[in-house]
């Protein structure tokens, strides 16, 4: 058990690869086929490139305010990779890699950030809540879903993700406490990317780690190198398995870095140093994993070239689709307020239609 072997209170952190992609802990390598490994790489590349594209579109005025995930590829893909179709996820707003890993359509993801209501619709069959913008509010919901699964006798696990800032909110503490008391089958993954907008982790908590907070709620906490996708997969898988088999909740702290600004409305250079960003650039999760795959003989320039072309085509297609989808109709803005539209709201809709001259 990783949670027995690594003591977060003593500053121990699970890592399998070093920053150059060399295997430090072969004993901890998760069981993955070569195809799995290539799929993980493909998802990480897709996450990074789709993110870069979103930043570009934002600068061109084709997409609104955007929260970039650059640097989070390993912890996001690594967390979601262990999910099964019957599991549930309650993510927060900075989790593109999770979305793409569970099969969420990229065009729909873009829709949301383009300000089109079409982006609200989770495809049928995906057990995925819309990501929460109010910080930490998804955490108690994930606990509730986990308790329901237990109540209904469904052997599934629930994953919820959030940033380090979220650990200051009441919802975080209430959610974790609730989960501990009721042994909910839930996995809490905190992407500790060192900053909550301009607030560094040192001003967010006086704990030496986020992971050790789990002890106060009565369940295991584990700190993981969040830029090491294999460590993330191993840790989250173990926690999901524990949840599914009745072992209760786990808190995982993915130690990582937000490479970009908080959002496209933010200017991170106001509050953090160039040197700090450069230190983290040298710990790039993608470069590390590529190096590992190359050493195993699963990666070469040829493969990268094919992957790059596929990824590029997929992103272009998603952008084209997202941009050709018209914004929501007036009806669409009204009819999802209630299951059945109340009479006075129907009247307001009719009035609004008249005012807008049937233009929409």
């Amino acid at each position: 058990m990783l949670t027995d072997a690594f003591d977060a209170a003593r500053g121990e952190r699970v890592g399998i690869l070093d920053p150059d992609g060399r295997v430090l802990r072969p004993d901890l390598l998760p069981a993955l086929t070569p195809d799995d490994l290539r799929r993980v790489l493909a998802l990480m590349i897709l996450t990074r490139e789709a993110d870069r594209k979103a930043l570009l579109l934002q600068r061109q005025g084709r997409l609104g305010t955007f929260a970039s995930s650059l640097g989070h590829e390993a912890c996001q893909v690594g967390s979601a990779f262990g999910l099964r179709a019957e599991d549930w996820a309650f993510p927060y707003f900075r989790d593109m890699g999770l979305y793409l890993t569970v099969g969420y359509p990229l065009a729909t993801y873009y829709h949301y950030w383009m300000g089109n209501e079409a982006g609200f619709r989770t495809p049928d069959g995906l057990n995925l809540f819309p990501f929460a913008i109010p910080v930490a509010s998804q955490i108690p919901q994930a606990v509730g879903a986990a308790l329901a699964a237990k109540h209904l006798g469904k052997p599934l696990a629930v994953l919820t993700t959030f940033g380090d800032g979220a650990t200051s909110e009441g919802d975080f503490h209430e959610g974790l406490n609730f989960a501990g008391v009721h042994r909910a089958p839930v996995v809490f993954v905190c992407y500790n990317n060192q900053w909550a907008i301009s607030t560094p982790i040192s001003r967010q908590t006086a704990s030496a780690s986020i992971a050790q907070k789990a002890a106060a709620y009565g369940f295991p906490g584990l700190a993981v190198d969040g830029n090491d996708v294999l460590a993330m997969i191993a840790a989250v898988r173990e926690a999901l398995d524990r949840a599914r088999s009745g072992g209760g909740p786990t808190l995982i702290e993915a130690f990582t870095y937000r490479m970009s600004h908080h959002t496209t409305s933010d200017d991170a250079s106001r509050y953090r140093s160039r040197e700090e960003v450069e230190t983290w650039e040298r710990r790039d999760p993608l470069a590390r994993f590529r190096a590992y795959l190359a050493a195993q003989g699963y990666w070469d320039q040829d493969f990268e070239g094919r992957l790059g072309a596929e990824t590029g085509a997929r992103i272009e297609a998603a952008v084209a689709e997202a941009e050709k989808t018209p914004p929501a109709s007036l009806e669409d803005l009204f009819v999802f307020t209630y299951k059945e539209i109340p009479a006075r709201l129907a009247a307001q809709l009719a009035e609004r239609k008249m005012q807008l001259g049937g233009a929409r």
Partner: protein
Amino acid sequence: MNLNMVQAINQALAQALAADERVVLLGEDIGPDGGVFRATEGLSERFGTDRVMDTPLAESGLVGAAIGMAALGLKPVAEIQFLGFIYPAFNQIVSHAARLRNRTRGRFGAPIVIRTPYGAGVGALEHHSESTEALFCQIPGLTVVVPSSPVEAKGLLLASIRSEDPVLFLEPTRLYRAGKEEVPEAAYEIPLRRARIVRPGADLTILAWGAMIPISLQAAEEAAAAGHSAEVIDLRTLSPMDEEAVLASVRKTGRALIVHEAPRAFGAGAEIAALLAESALLHLKAPVLRVTAPDITVPLAKSEAAYYVDAGRIGAGITRLMEF
């Protein structure tokens, strides 16, 4: 000096900090970052991080802490990043700040100011555009203030900081950088609980606040061309409301158009309409009319225009009232 609303607020905060050492600011990212809208820019450098305090990401914690600070004599001004994120603190505001005076039979009050941007019209992300002022207006003990220009913002904020009661100070995001005006350099206060006549008129009264003021003025100017003289009243303090000013104007003009960007049902407009029905009925020449957003969730950016109140809709309201 020519200032926009954010700069006027910044100047008011700086002057309050300089004038009274009991004033402290607290909030998320308000320190070196200067707040997400830069309203506190430069203040932590000037007054120190003990007086301009970055807090953990915890709205309930920071408002609760402000109440406790006030108990020991400080004058806390808390910033909530957006009105849409105030709800974790709702319990502290509603259950404690607003009723502390009552619960202690006057022994303690909660003289805190909670500043927060609010409102639609800038194509912001989900949860960043709501106008839920009415939720707070129904809470006895709470004062809800909404400025509509840089000059108003500075004077009302300084008065709010001086207030002995808790004030929710709602800053219309749309007006933050919408324009500059000459703002007196020296500190000044605009009394709370007093509405102002922004534009005098004889035929109808437009009752509005915040970001609805500039577009109401625009609609009033357009109506003047058609021969309709609209008086525009800026309520400024929504609760407790300046009922006398509302009644005096409507008794004079005989027609009332209430404009708010919040959804219509159970909104502040309903309160004003009820007031007029109770106390000005025989002066009315037409039914009281509301121009508001529909009762739906604020749409995402691409569809915001379908939601938002604009001068055209206000103009149509004026015509309807005048042609009744």
